[in-house]
């Protein structure tokens, strides 16, 4: 196990370096954007005098690298800083948005991952059958449409016509858990349809790949039933690639859902990031980017650990 701990620590260390690089790049890129927060906030009212007064008030008149290092110093103290636009503590409002985003992503994952695995296993089991073709066709179709289109179709049928679900998912913190769950189902379904095909096809391919191996043939010759062959013999060796694709898709569920948030009026992190970039609110952009980067790094780390643990050859290297 000690080698595993070492790998995890190594990866965490690299993760921190990556986060640092990300923050540096973001700071640089936001500086490159035309205009700054004072002009974005004042809009039509931006006269040179008001812009100068505003810049001074929020400290934008100081050089960029000094502001960056101040921000970095704050991060090490666990202080995400204040929004330049609203002067509120970032941790305070990013927290709610993050939990909304994780809730939506979690719900979508709870639908999508088991479904993808199950359908993938069945598609591998009955490969090239009508069932396999239909599953592939429908999931590929749903992944090929843009997200907003899938969302509108679901709204049209399940909300406007059938009236089962609400047409918008304006969750707020004072909603009961059940209500929040109910209001989040439609966006979660949309995301499920969007990510299903990836995971399903990787599961199918990884298992089919193994089915031609000698040890599977051995199992079959023993007279093991086909489903048992797949679940007990093939799947344990297929976890590596499957988990990697799942991790990528889970990360997407957290960081790539702006469109779905807009269509369903869901108050998540994506909308916050877009607003903040439009307003050039650098500390908020930084905070969101760091969170997104951390999600990617952690999920990838998790996927690697699962691959290692599920593979004795990697777990006990000679």
């Amino acid at each position: 196990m000690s080698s595993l701990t070492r790998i995890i620590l190594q990866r965490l260390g690299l993760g921190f370096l990556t986060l640092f690089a990300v923050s540096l790049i973001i700071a640089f890129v936001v500086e490159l954007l035309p205009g700054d927060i004072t002009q974005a906030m004042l809009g039509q009212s931006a006269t040179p005098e008001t812009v100068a007064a505003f810049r001074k008030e929020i400290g934008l008149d100081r050089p960029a690298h000094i502001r960056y290092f101040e921000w970095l110093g704050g991060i090490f103290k666990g202080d995400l800083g204040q929004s330049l636009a609203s002067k509120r503590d970032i941790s305070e409002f990013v927290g709610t948005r993050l939990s909304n985003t994780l809730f939506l992503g979690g719900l979508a994952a709870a639908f999508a991952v088991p479904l993808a695995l199950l359908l993938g296993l069945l598609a591998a089991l009955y490969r090239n059958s009508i069932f396999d073709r239909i599953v592939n066709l429908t999931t590929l179709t749903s992944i090929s449409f843009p997200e907003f289109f899938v969302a509108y179709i679901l709204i049209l049928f399940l909300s406007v016509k059938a009236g089962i679900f609400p047409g918008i998912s304006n969750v707020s913190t004072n909603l009961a858990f059940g209500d929040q769950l109910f209001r989040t189902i439609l966006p979660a379904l949309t995301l499920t349809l969007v990510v299903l095909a990836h995971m399903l096809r990787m599961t199918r391919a990884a298992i089919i790949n193994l089915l031609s191996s000698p040890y599977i043939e051995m199992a079959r010759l023993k007279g093991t039933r086909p489903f048992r062959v797949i679940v007990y013999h093939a799947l344990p060796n297929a976890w590596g690639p499957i988990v990697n694709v799942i991790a990528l898709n889970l990360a997407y569920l957290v960081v790539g859902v702006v469109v779905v948030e807009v269509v369903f009026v869901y108050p998540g992190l994506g909308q916050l990031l877009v607003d903040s970039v439009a307003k050039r609110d650098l500390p908020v952009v930084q905070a969101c980017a760091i969170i997104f980067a951390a999600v990617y790094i952690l999920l990838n780390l998790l996927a690697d650990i699962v691959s290692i643990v599920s593979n004795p050859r990697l777990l006990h290297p000679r």
Partner: protein
Amino acid sequence: MKDFDDLQQLFSEGRIDRRVFIKRAMSIGMTAAIPLGILSQEAQAAGPKHGGVFRTAVRGGATSDSLAGSALLDTHNIMASWSCRNNLTEIAPDGSVTGELAESWEASSDASVWVFKLRKGVEFHNGKTLDADDVIYSINDHRGPDSKSGGSGAVASIDDIKADGSDTVVFTLSGGSADFPFLMADYHLTIVPAGTSDWDAGMGTGPYTLTAWDPGVRFAGKRNPNYFKEGRPYFDEVEILNVGDATARMNALRTDEVDAIEEPDLQTVDRIGSVPGLSVKEVGGTKHFTFPMLSDIAPFDNNDVRLALKYGIDRESILQAVLRGHGYLGNDHPIGSSQRYFADDIPVREYDPDKARHHLKKAGMDSLNLKLHAGDIYAGGMDNAVLYQAHAAKAGINMEIVREPTDGYWSNVWMKKPFSVCYWGGRPTSDWMFSTAYAADAAWNDTHWKHDKFNELLVAARAELDDAKRRQMYHDMQLICRDEGAVVIPVFANTLMGVSDKVGTPERIAGNWPMDGDKSPERWWFA
């Protein structure tokens, strides 16, 4: 008689129905004397009733919003702010100015000193009684050379504010301003208790007390039982959602998630009417689309070129194609038809490619090549530019459209590029509109236009208290702007709202801002 008046009040507010009203009236012996008008009111609208939670979806919010008066920007935060707070004055639905926290006001003979008497006994949500210090603190928040308030323009003319007792405020202006009470209705200039620093708590005198405020997402408020406006507000609670996407707003309205929405999508607005239980309300307002030219840069420094551009646009086609008829024709000046001093005798300039060519010739040109910088800063911004390009081509004007990103448009394109696409929400008075964007020294004079006669008239009209003379001056200014100004104004856009039939609205809806002057939470009710 006092009993009867009370009864009449209850009835007109919808707290009792007609049967109870007649019964009680009989019991005090008043049946024979019931004026017919009272009962017929009920037949029309049943009168405003109390109760219910009003949910509305509007646009214009962002996570970076704040309820600070100086930072208000667009519908979501303005409506939220006015749900909690009031101004000294208010623009009535008919476009006139009425008192809100001010009971009355008086001007000196040259309109440069204004004395406002405050309404007595008005309380903030925390129980503090409104006095002159609160007003002074609130207005001063926008003043000063370093002010970054969007309301700084409205208070720029104030030289001094002082209290005269606890319920009188005296404003001394740098020059005469007959429209000063209108300026006090600017949405930035809400009145808060003196010393307020946490504006996001929503403390004020308004119709609702704040229960939730999530910038760019949601505002919620509870009825203020002590509200100083008799009978108002009608709803028990109000919830204002920010929904930026027009389709999502429409979905919300169709699935009964909200009772009213701002700005339904123009492409599909005509279909709302065919959905049972929903209807579209429409008010002609002051919002207009403009094409400003920088009049100090060639070729726009030549008035003949400007006239050629004004004759080279087919206004009717823009009204039909982009606004789908939901608006009215503009006449190259920014005064809307609903405004007090609108000059209705000036004919609307027609599309005339020959005249446009004629003016080009007078300017010594056979044809003209120029760049139009455009972006979708309003729905239809690019469409307007493309249509204009086609219209102008017939007059020998070749426009190249440069598509600009909407992000950063106001800092990088507007007032920087010689010819661009722009729009204005408009202002309630002629003086306000002209002073904001047409006066020679205005910060937002987006055409760099300097017309001596116009600027003289602007100052004179501002201080003129004789209405007939003033009307003539504004008439002349509209004419000058139309014929010598540096802006093409093809159309004025109506304000549209999608409203559920459950909601009762007053006969006249205000058009100065969207959603009934951004005050639907206190003006509407559940029918």
